[in-house]
């Protein structure tokens, strides 16, 4: 072996790598790994308990999609009457996951031996790192939406399960409509928004993710929050509302609300109330005839007709899906669903049509989105798809392949060595 190859080899020894990355050494500790894994178990235990109280979505947001969560010891447990008042910080999924990734990478760099003998273990750990990164990326960038289609009709947009937007739609032209949408993050009470492409300024007076509402006899009887509403459905129906906490439970129905004023220059045009129906604003007509107009509150200006609504965050697609037929099957003699099927036409951007069948665990994938069969109402002839956009959906598959290869390599290596030793002994 010459000097050059010796030098090259020395760059890959554990000692050399520790020298090159001394700051990584403390992060590579096995104790840290065990501590993080123990805390992960606690996190899963606490989140599982909390799931009963705040639902899957709530537990996910509070504990897994955060750096820390605050947990209160359940009153029903032993000593709960004393301990339930103490807020206990629990490390969140982002914190533990992030630290585990750093810990594994640091161990990979400063502790593992890079030799053919150990390459299986290295591949396994690489797979785990990829799995963690993939999961965290998914949690951070995956977007879940829904698409509802009536039989015989097609839809070219999806709506988020959570979050609303204020949308102004100019419907004057027969060939196309102009939409100006303001996401809820900008709808801060007290703020005034200058909206490009819209003739008025929007002054936000009140906004919330959920409310309950009822009708009053007169404007004077309305709640303080809608007292000033003098235009649109809020005024004509004398709506009074009470803000409520956002419901994260599985069967949550959050009615987001917004009280806003439109201002033309310095002239105040009036105050409107908009409420978003969680199943889409076209459902308002089934709630009460007085509320039917909540899906399109008209505004006229300079020969243009605009409609305003607060609605679930909407994303338009360059293609559409047409519902041809729906079928549902139940286990014999029960109401338990066995299979839901939606026969659809995918109307592509190019104008071509593609027939597809969407049923349980067999989604339709197109344009970076996956359409899963989610709900169905045979009586009302509509289907609902859960639509997932997850650019990192391949990462877990690659990680699992790496894990399998690593395990296979490691076991094969030991098996061959074992067999060699056995044959030597027998010889």
């Amino acid at each position, binding site marked *: 072996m010459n000097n050059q190859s010796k030098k090259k080899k020395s*760059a890959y020894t554990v000692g050399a790598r520790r020298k090159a990355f001394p700051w990584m050494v403390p992060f590579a500790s096995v104790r840290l790994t065990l501590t993080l894994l123990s805390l992960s178990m606690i996190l899963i235990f606490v989140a599982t308990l909390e799931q009963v109280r705040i639902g899957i979505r709530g537990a996910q947001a509070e504990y897994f999609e955060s750096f820390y969560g605050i947990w209160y010891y359940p009153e029903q447990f032993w000593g709960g009457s004393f301990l339930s008042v103490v807020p206990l910080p629990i490390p969140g999924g982002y914190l533990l996951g992030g630290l585990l990734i750093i810990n594994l990478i640091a161990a990979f760099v400063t502790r593992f031996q890079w030799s053919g003998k150990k390459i299986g273990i290295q591949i396994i750990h690489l797979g785990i790192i990829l799995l963690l990164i993939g999961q965290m990326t998914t949690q*951070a960038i995956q977007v879940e939406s829904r698409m509802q289609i009536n039989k015989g009709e097609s839809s070219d947009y999806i709506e988020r399960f959570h979050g609303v937007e204020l949308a102004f739609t100019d419907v004057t032209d027969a060939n*196309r*409509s102009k*939409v100006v949408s*303001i996401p809820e*993050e900008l709808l801060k009470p007290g703020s005034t928004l200058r909206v490009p492409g819209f003739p008025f300024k929007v002054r936000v007076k009140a906004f919330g993710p959920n409310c309950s509402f009822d009708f009053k006899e007169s404007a004077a009887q309305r709640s303080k929050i809608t007292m000033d509403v003098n235009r649109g459905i809020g005024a004509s129906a004398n709506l009074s509302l009470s803000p409520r906490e956002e419901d994260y439970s599985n069967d949550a129905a959050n009615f987001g609300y917004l009280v806003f004023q439109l201002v033309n220059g310095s002239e105040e045009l009036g105050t409107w109330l908009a409420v978003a129906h969680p199943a889409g604003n076209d459902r308002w007509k089934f709630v009460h005839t007085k509320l039917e107009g909540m899906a399109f509150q*008209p505004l006229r200006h300079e*020969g243009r007709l605009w409609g305003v609504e607060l609605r679930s965050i909407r994303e338009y697609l360059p293609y559409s899906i047409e519902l041809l037929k729906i079928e549902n099957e139940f286990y014999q003699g029960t109401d338990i669903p066995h299979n839901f099927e939606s026969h659809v036409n995918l109307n592509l951007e190019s104008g071509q049509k593609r027939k597809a069948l969407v049923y349980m665990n067999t989604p339709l994938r197109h344009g970076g989105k996956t359409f899963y069969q989610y709900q169905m109402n045979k009586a009302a002839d509509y289907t609902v798809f859960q639509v997932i956009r997850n650019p990192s959906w391949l990462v877990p598959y690659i990680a699992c392949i790496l894990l399998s290869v690593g395990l296979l390599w490691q076991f094969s290596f030991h098996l061959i060595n074992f067999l060699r030793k056995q044959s030597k002994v027998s010889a």
Partner: protein
Amino acid sequence: MYFNSQNIFKIGASNLLFFSLLCLTSCTEETEIQTYYIPPEYEGPVVAWKLPPNWGENPELSGPMAGSFHVKTNSGPQGRIGVMPFREAVSTLSITNMFGMELGYEKFKEDTLSQVLTTKKVGQKKFEWIHLTERDSPSDPKTALLAVLRQKDETWLFPFVANAALIDQEMNSFISFLDSTTVRAGKKVIRAPRPISAAPIDKPTGAPTWDAPDHWITGKASSVRIASYTVSDEDGNELDFSITSFPGDVGGLQSNVNRWLTQIELPKIESLESTPYLTSYSIDEKDAHLFLAENTEKTIYGALLFGKSRSWFFKIMGDTSLAKVEKENFLNLLTTVCFHDH
């Protein structure tokens, strides 16, 4: 060598760490106001206009399907301009008669219609142009200028009802208003308020609109009797329908019930409790009373609504056999009454 294997490894490891930290912190939703165009999906009727500077919009005409305006003058709002959609093709003769009878004209026929009918092109739109001036009123007579636009099977009526001088003065504004309008019927039902015939300019404040059955013949209205219709059958039986309005409660419920009972020769009631003639009712979400009384020859179906400052009476009276036939039409009419105040 700058890119030896150790350096490449260092860069790779650092990038991996950076990427994982980036994932934790930078993956957020876009929070910008967005503007984009979509294929039309709104199914309601589209009615849009550009209002002349000296015109005002009459408040709280709910829904996107019609509009109502006035001219701002030094002596307050004057005249009434409207946008009236009809889903079906309404004949010019019907529209002309609807307004003509209000202004004292004899019923127009096909051969006499040309006396008041011309056509006018405004921008790209072609209107039927009907000019009616109140008879028997020589100085500054009331005038109805009716612009009728036909689009496919739709009929759009733009009535301008005011004194003749005001109409002359506002003619250019009316024409520019017509030019600015965009009207398009949608798939949804159009709920057109009753045209100006049911809402003359000298009506009491806050007067309602309504839809009367097609076979009811419009009669003469006044400031008190704001609507008048007659219904007859082949046997010559007749019913008279009216909507009247008075300031205050005009004696209250019992007094008015007894007045109606006397008109069909039924004994008066002593008290409102347990009277067989009255039931609680609702007109345009306002508390009202439904009155049903009949003898063998005459019948009155009515509704009494006592508002804050005015009382409203909806009454159909006449032959009992015909009243039974028209009862459902009368009740249907009550459901279409709209005060446009909520």
